């Protein structure tokens, strides 16, 4: 018996010391030596407690599918040119289908064998005469639609991760939620939240297109668009007056190259001291760029970012070396942010913000101070009450109670879990403190009953613990079971509540049965107490 007591005390001491080491960095400044050799992560605070940004984005994944269909339409047109198949038009007819209009119905066989075969994942769904020519309808394989969408969401997550890394927030978190949603959490982000949102949200799709010099811009603006062309605008803003002018450009729709080949983008001043973005391409990109510029000498190459023309310089000669620049009138912030999003890569589809929670640091500080004060005061009330009602035994319960709080924090900080403390988490903690106190009250009331029935202090203590055991297990297990679906279904704050609750319930069982019991055993065995102060 003495032996087991000794080991129990050692175990409690170890747990206590371990918890102290885990929790201390959240409370006070850590000495240098400690910071070097011991875990010194402070507790992770939720956005509601330290301020920051929480965004839910919805990826417009169907637009990624549309982009594939658009690209395929361009590919079909170019293949038909190569095979000398005469056609009047190729258009996207819905999010997942396109129609090809042949001038000569007899060329359908040629189209099937030479063009359709090369268009991966597209199937012919119908063909027949129409007023625009012989129409062949193609549709993307539904299975492929799903995989394009999923890829778009995954790729968007990767890109956004790259982008938020630049904010210098300690623990950014970007995860997929459901099918097409992305949750971005930037706890501790203090400055310029609007700029952060802009950077996260920006599609940053860089495209190189050729200006259609032969087409009639004025006629196109009135609606008579040459086939395969589009109009995009260049927007110039006068930095002094703030007024902006829009210049239209008639471009060939075909995308010659995209920003996917970028390896770097940085801000530089040009010879006039204006800011430009210098970009480097990877080897494949450099080759591609060289070929394009070689094929289009003396034409204008438009640099298009998110469907806005930035510049359209004349290609004087074949450009090798794999680099290009974007000109425009940039403020230093704009230039910096643009280079950042170009480096991080483009989003495969636009995203829409469907949830935005921005908490300023001052509000977070208030919440944590109030929450802490409320818990400390609540514990103080309880401690005084327990001491008054149960005297020395009440003090033992109070030790267990303080230990409870310490252990919950320690488990949350521990590298295994790294749980986040939120405002509802504090609520969960309050509930657990109530449960822990209840466990002690259940035990003590039982002990009192046993004492009244004439048992000795020692025997009453033993019986009290044994009889209260099942009750306490039942109450804790039911609460645990009720909290589980909350972890599964709950989002953000409610999850925080449930996790804190579950940790607390386990800790509560430990302190109620192991810690207080050991203290009582110590008092009985070592101090040889005959009467119980309860």
């Amino acid at each position: 018996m003495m032996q087991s007591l000794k080991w129990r005390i050692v175990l409690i001491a170890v747990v206590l010391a371990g918890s102290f080491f885990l929790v201390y960095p959240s409370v006070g400044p850590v000495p240098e030596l400690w910071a070097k050799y011991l875990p010194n992560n402070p507790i992770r605070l939720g956005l509601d407690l330290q301020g920051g940004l929480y965004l839910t984005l919805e990826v417009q994944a169907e637009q990624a599918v549309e982009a594939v269909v658009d690209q395929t339409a361009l590919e079909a047109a170019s293949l038909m040119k190569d095979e000398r198949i005469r056609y009047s038009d190729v258009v996207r007819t819905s999010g997942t289908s396109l129609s090809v209009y042949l001038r000569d119905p007899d060329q359908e066989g040629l189209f099937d064998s030479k063009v359709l075969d090369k268009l991966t994942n597209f199937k012919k769904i119908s063909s027949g005469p129409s007023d625009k020519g012989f129409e062949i309808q193609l549709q993307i394989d539904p299975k492929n639609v799903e995989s394009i969408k999923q890829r778009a969401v995954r790729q968007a997550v990767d890109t956004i991760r790259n982008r938020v890394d630049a904010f210098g927030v300690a623990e950014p978190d970007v995860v997929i939620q459901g099918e097409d949603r992305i949750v971005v959490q930037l706890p501790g982000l203090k400055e310029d939240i609007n700029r952060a949102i802009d950077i996260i949200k920006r599609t940053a799709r860089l495209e190189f297109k050729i200006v259609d010099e032969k087409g009639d811009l004025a006629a196109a603006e009135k609606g008579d668009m040459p086939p395969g062309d589009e109009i995009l605008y260049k927007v110039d803003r006068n930095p002094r007056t703030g007024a902006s002018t829009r210049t239209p450009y008639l471009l060939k729709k075909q995308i010659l190259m995209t920003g996917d080949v970028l390896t770097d983008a940085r801000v530089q001043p040009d010879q006039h001291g204006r800011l430009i973005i210098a970009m480097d391409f990877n080897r494949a990109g450099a080759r591609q760029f060289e070929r394009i510029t070689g094929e289009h000498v003396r034409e204008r190459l438009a640099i298009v970012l998110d469907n806005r023309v930035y510049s359209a310089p004349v290609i004087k000669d074949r450009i090798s070396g794999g680099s290009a620049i974007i000109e425009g009138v940039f403020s230093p912030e704009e230039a910096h942010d643009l280079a950042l999003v170009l480096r991080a890569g483009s989003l495969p589809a636009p995203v829409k913000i469907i949830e935005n929670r921005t908490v300023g640091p001052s509000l977070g500080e208030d919440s944590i101070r109030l929450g802490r004060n409320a818990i400390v005061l609540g514990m103080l009330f309880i401690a005084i009450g327990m001491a008054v009602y149960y005297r020395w035994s009440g003090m033992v319960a109070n030790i267990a109670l303080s230990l409870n709080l310490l252990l919950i924090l320690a488990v949350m900080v521990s590298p295994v879990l790294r749980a986040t403390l939120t405002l509802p988490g504090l609520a969960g903690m309050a509930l657990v403190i109530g449960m822990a106190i209840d466990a002690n009250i259940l035990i003590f009331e039982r002990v009192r009953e046993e004492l009244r029935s004439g048992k000795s202090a020692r025997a009453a203590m033993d019986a009290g613990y044994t009889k209260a055991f099942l009750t306490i297990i039942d109450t804790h297990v039911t609460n645990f079971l009720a909290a589980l679906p909350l972890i599964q279904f709950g989002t953000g704050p409610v999850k925080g509540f449930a996790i804190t609750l579950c940790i607390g319930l386990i800790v509560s069982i430990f302190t109620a049965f192991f810690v207080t019991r050991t203290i009582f055993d110590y008092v009985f065995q070592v101090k040889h107490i005959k009467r119980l102060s309860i």
Partner: protein
Amino acid sequence: MELIKPNTKIDFMGKRHYAYIFSAVILVLALASIPVKGTIKLGIDFSGGVMIQARFNKPVEIDVIREALKPLSENLTVQKLVGSEEFIVRMEAPEGGSDKLAQEVKQLLDDKIGKGATEIRSLEMVGPKVGKDLQEHAIWATVIALIFLLIYMAFRFTLTMGLGAIACLIHDLAILYGFFTWTGLEFNLTILAAWLTVIGYDVNDTIVVCDRIRENLKTMKKKPLEEIFNISINQTLSRTLLTSGFTLLSVLAFLVFGTTILRDFAWALLVGIVFGTYSSIFVASPLVLELDRFLPVKRG
């Protein structure tokens, strides 16, 4: 010190018909809020919308703020927090995105009240779809939690005790619903956590009583069920009152320190614990007793 004398014998079960009347009256009062006040006021977490908390470095009238933000929404409510120049503005989510909302709000307030006078302390925008999802998740989580509870209670105790516990919860949640609707307090994610806390305490109380009943059923085989229930409730009465009392003490701390959300949280706990204590004695056990005719409690 003793709150309840050791041999207290209150005839709870004998008075259960008064409790039925009391419960019925309270429930009618609580649910009368629906025809009178409409349904519970959902926070933007569940209804979708925009909530802005702003603080000013000088006294500002509510109407000035409403006037300033009119361009954003005709339909906005402004609430002043007690004891500070701090306001909460609620409005519908603007059509077609609101990426720059914080900027716009700050600009409008700066223009009206003076540059640098405004601090946007928080801005929350929840799209209607997200709100609906959160609602659904919350309901599912609660329903599954209740099912787990029923299964566990039926397995560890008896089916009727499980039903009793659930009845208790529904009783108390209905009262909370009425309380929130009558007072116009907002139901949001944090308040959901408070309600779940109440559920936790509620189940706790019911289980402690059921546990004692189960134990006494083994030793008091000759006694009628009603008496065993009475004995069990009396035996645990001291614990029931102590635990509720102590938790109410800590709730008091939340009331003292709470601003807005923490205070609403504390109110939910206060009402929930008071009625939870009542219902664990007067709703759960009587129900088991009434159901005994159809689903007899096993003895021994």
